[in-house]
């Protein structure tokens, strides 16, 4: 253990625990998932950073959106994100989730992912190298330390608006709201 971080461990052990046990949900969208097998296996061993892929969203706390998000995929992304236990962090991977990338005038690819779910960090590039994943992970550690990776809190707080955006795209959603949505005349959520 790094002795310089001993004070951090004593002050906020929960936060340090979150930092070094990031479990990525195995969810493949688009082309970026091709960078994940090399980064979790022997070539760039992601477990050095405490990053491990897990099978189900119920066990995960990091969500990598790898590549373009089509309208149909976004539905499963929202479902997966809502199933993950808190605290949860989202990282957009590649230029397509940021602003559409090369799909910026596509008929079936959404342009800004953060209109529908909160995103804590972005990795730019098309495609980013596996090293960029680790830069993002170390950056995420800093954000967790400073309490800035608060996407899940934002989702809870502004759920009414996120849900409204999702319903604008899909019409009526098939599943009930995750958090209670108050009436329009009531106070803000």
């Amino acid at each position, binding site marked *: 253990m790094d002795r310089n971080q001993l004070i951090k461990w004593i002050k906020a052990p929960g936060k340090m625990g979150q930092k070094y046990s990031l479990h990525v949900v195995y969810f493949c969208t688009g082309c970026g998932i091709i960078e994940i097998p090399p980064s979790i296996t022997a070539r760039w061993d992601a477990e050095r950073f405490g990053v491990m892929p897990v099978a189900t969203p119920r066990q995960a706390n990091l969500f990598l959106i790898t590549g373009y998000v089509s*309208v*149909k995929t976004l*539905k499963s992304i929202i479902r997966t994100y809502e199933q993950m236990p808190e605290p949860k962090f989202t990282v957009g991977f590649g230029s397509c989730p940021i602003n559409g990338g090369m799909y910026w005038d596509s008929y*079936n690819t959404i342009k*800004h992912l953060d209109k529908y779910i909160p995103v804590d960090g972005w990795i730019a590039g098309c495609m980013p190298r596996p090293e960029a994943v680790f830069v993002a992970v170390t950056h995420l550690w800093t954000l967790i330390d400073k309490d800035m990776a608060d996407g899940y809190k*934002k989702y809870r707080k502004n759920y009414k608006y996120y849900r409204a955006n999702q319903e604008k*795209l899909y019409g009526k959603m098939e599943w009930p709201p995750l958090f209670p949505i108050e009436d329009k005349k009531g106070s803000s959520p």
Partner: protein
Amino acid sequence: MKLLKKKIELAFDNVRVDVPESNRMVINAGKDTVLSILDLLKSEGYAHLALISCVDWQKDKEFELVYILSAYMQDNNIYDDKQKENIILRTRISRGNPEFITVISIFENAEPYEREIHEFFGIDFKGHPRLTPLFLEREYKIPPFRKDFDTRKYVKEVFDEIPFVENEDGKK
């Protein structure tokens, strides 16, 4: 290949057969003869329907359906020239009344291809058991692969209209 060309030209009228390369044959047929040509090609050994594709010729006001056929290996692990051959069958249907007959009765694997073409071009295949949505989640007024579908306008109307979620202090 030459024998087959003669056979098709003799059997059907209103058919133009070209052989641009030694292993490729292009048949331009009228829409009434497509089923019988496919039946003949299947009995000749070209029993694999590789793809059905569609082209939108907006100026001619026509859709072009393209059927690509090839042959299966007959004996175990022995290639002959027939396996390298591709047969391309083209036919044109009117754009104003996009209807055609399904070819599931001859090639069963045509089902997803015809569903896809129905979804992206709006062509109605008569006799198809289920023309339900295959890939797309939203409904489009104009099918998205037609040439008169303006993607940029669509994106501006749908995706750009959705606002960013902002916190109460105005930050994103």
